[in-house]
């Protein structure tokens, strides 16, 4: 087995200063190029898991190691992770180009290279020529693509996706999920993908972590999960009975 690309070692996280835990003793490892789905009902801690990896939520115990480097106390902006939210969180005061270029500017990429890379990113998501558009004029699907372009443009070492299809309707989702899978494969990205939707998780993920009450209760390939759900809860989440 190769050295893990991302590993969480006995990570726990609290809700604020309170005594209740959002994550309890979570440990898992992910290899480079792997796409991991995180499946769980709301309140299971799956979003907190993502925020812990991104550095947006403090770890109370345990360590987060990315590419051999302990990131547990590294501030978010120095982690080089790409993060994409359900609501896309596009900057409303910037146009499409400037949204996508944001991370490149932060990374001090020279202006000429920046515009080439923005165009590339937009082309990857199928939005060539959208650069000057105002984000408020975009449709739901277009917003999702811009958010994706913005996230991948700075070439993050790890992609974190928090229900990226959550705000889209079923038809759009069915079209976008395969596209996303293809994009991830093409760019050979490592990704953690949070969803509550079984179908999405199965279509995108190499392996799936099932979360319940802040704990990982099963972590395996989709087919293994399907065949041997560890608990009734897992079976329920997978839509069995």
């Amino acid at each position, binding site marked *: 087995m190769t050295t893990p690309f991302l590993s969480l070692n006995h990570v726990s996280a609290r809700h*604020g*200063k*309170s005594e209740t835990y959002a994550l309890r003793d979570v440990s898992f490892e992910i290899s480079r190029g792997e796409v991991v789905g995180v499946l769980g009902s709301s309140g299971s801690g799956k979003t907190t898991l993502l925020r812990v990896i*991104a*550095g*947006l*939520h*403090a770890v109370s115990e345990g360590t987060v190691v990315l590419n051999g480097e302990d990131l547990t106390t590294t*501030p*978010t*902006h*120095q*982690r*080089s*992770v*790409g*993060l*994409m*939210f359900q*609501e896309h*969180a596009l*900057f*409303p*005061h910037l146009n499409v180009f400037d949204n996508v270029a*944001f*991370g490149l500017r*932060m*990374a001090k990429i020279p202006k000429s290279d920046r515009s080439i890379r923005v165009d590339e990113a937009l082309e990857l998501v199928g939005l060539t020529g959208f650069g000057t558009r*105002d984000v*408020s*004029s975009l449709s739901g699907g277009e917003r999702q693509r811009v958010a994706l372009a*913005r*996230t991948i443009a*700075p070439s993050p070492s790890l992609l*974190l996706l928090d229900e990226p299809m959550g705000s889209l309707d079923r038809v759009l989702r069915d079209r976008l999920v395969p596209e996303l899978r293809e994009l991830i494969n093409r760019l050979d990205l490592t990704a953690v993908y949070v969803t509550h939707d079984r179908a999405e998780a199965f279509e995108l993920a190499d392996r799936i972590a099932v979360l319940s009450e802040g704990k990982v209760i099963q972590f395996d390939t989709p087919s293994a999960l399907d065949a041997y759900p560890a608990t009734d809860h897992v079976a329920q989440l997978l839509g069995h009975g």
Partner: protein
Amino acid sequence: MVSTLPLNQTSPPVSSRRNSWWRLLAAAPPLVFLAVFFAWPVGAILLRGLHSGGTWNVGVFGDVFTDPTMRRVLWFTAWESVASTGLCVLVAIPGAALFARYRFRGKRLLWSALLVPFVLPTVVVAVSMLGIIGGGGLTGINLNGTVWAILIAHVFFNYAVVVRTVGSTWSTIDPRLEESARALGAPPWRVFAEVTWPLIRSAVAAASSIVFLFSFTSFGIVLILGGISHRTLEVEIYDQTAKFLHLDLAAVLALVQLVVVVLILVWFGRSQRRRSVLFDQRSASETEHLAETPRQRWFVRSNLAFMALLLGTPLFVLVVRSFATPDGWGFGFYRSLADSRGGSTSFVPPIDAIGNSLLFASIATVIALVLGLCAAWAIVGDGSVDSDSRFARWTDTALMIPLGTSAVTVGFGFLIVFDEPPLNLRSSLWLIPIAHAIVALPFVVRLLVPALRSIDPRVREAAATLGASPRRVWWSVDVPIVGRALAAAAGFAFAVSLGEFGATAFLIRPDRPTMPIAIYRALGRPGVYNFGQAMAMSTLLMVLTVVVILLIDRFRPAGVSEF
């Protein structure tokens, strides 16, 4: 909910002719009110100053602009108000962030209590501040007579305006925007500069315009804390009008003040509009969180400590003095408020003063609400693109002008225009609530406009296409949504009226003193009991204010309003 600021709006134009007709009708009451109770008296007093004996005194303009003393006054007023505004925004931004992003114990109470300085009478606070930074006081620092004392006092009075205006806008910004920026590699200061700032900029502009107006027309603070070498235009206008009756000079200065105020308002209005950005608004409960990391906890604590220092200390000194009787600590001053002190006519039983204050505040609130609703509706129109007309902007600006006009100009103007029936109002009780309503109106409008704008124009259009008349649309769509904003505006107007001093002091009035007037009167006489009673009554006014503001905040619609 999507706020429908008039930028980038792409809904189709609707029946604009009928629409503008209705808007004109709605704008008429507030504008006529302003014309009669503001423009007319001010115009008349200016005319009296500039036109006498059948000729125009044009020469006075030259005298004013070449007189080095006047030039110094103009220059000082200009830079003092810019500096006050800048400083206030600078120190209030962290406070706004605190309220927008963090959940902590006592947040609601503090949010309400913030407004106390804003409505307390200047003279009370200034005397209390002298006890802190006047040398020999608590700190031993002597800033009395320096421009620093003026700036600190302006920040003290206006801090809440910036924190509350910017804070409530900030709290509607999705924190995931900032988190996305962080994940994209932006360090905290760049997150603020590149993401937060562009989104709060229009709220900052709105708050700044108010702070600027208050600093520009500052009177009591400059007199008491600034020493005699610092004089603002407002002080000069007061002296030239009330002390020397040099109406020509006063008129020129008042005109200068008017021009600067209008220019500044137009400039602020433009930058506010140019910079306003359409964004998805979140409710405050979604965007606030507990301080988690040690750094966040430090941020919350240092912010609270700063507020305690800036706002708390002067108020604390005031409250302490209200209990420090010659016989030791106790309620002596409060008890003495109830006895009639030899039955003097100048003595105002506090219960009467409270009653007067409540009465005037109630009437002023009703006037301000009715007119404010008309004005807000006229400004917003039907929320479509063509609603953002010049007309709306000028209405908005016109309503703000009284805030930037000298109270003595208006007061003396009242004297010379309302002297004949049917408008023989010079010594009418009505003038007080009317004057208060003029001051409260811009605040009411600024609370109602965002609420009205939050109504999706498509709902209105849908109602209209279903055959509802504009009046029906207004009644069935706008009124329910605006109800909560209206309640909040009512409370604010009430608080403004409770604390209003400047205009009330300059009006000829039958003897129905409000609380600030009663406080001022007690301070105008020597003796330990007079001073103590002024402090005790100020404390009561503070408590009354907090109660009223707490009630307002209970009705406040989540997130959409300023102040």
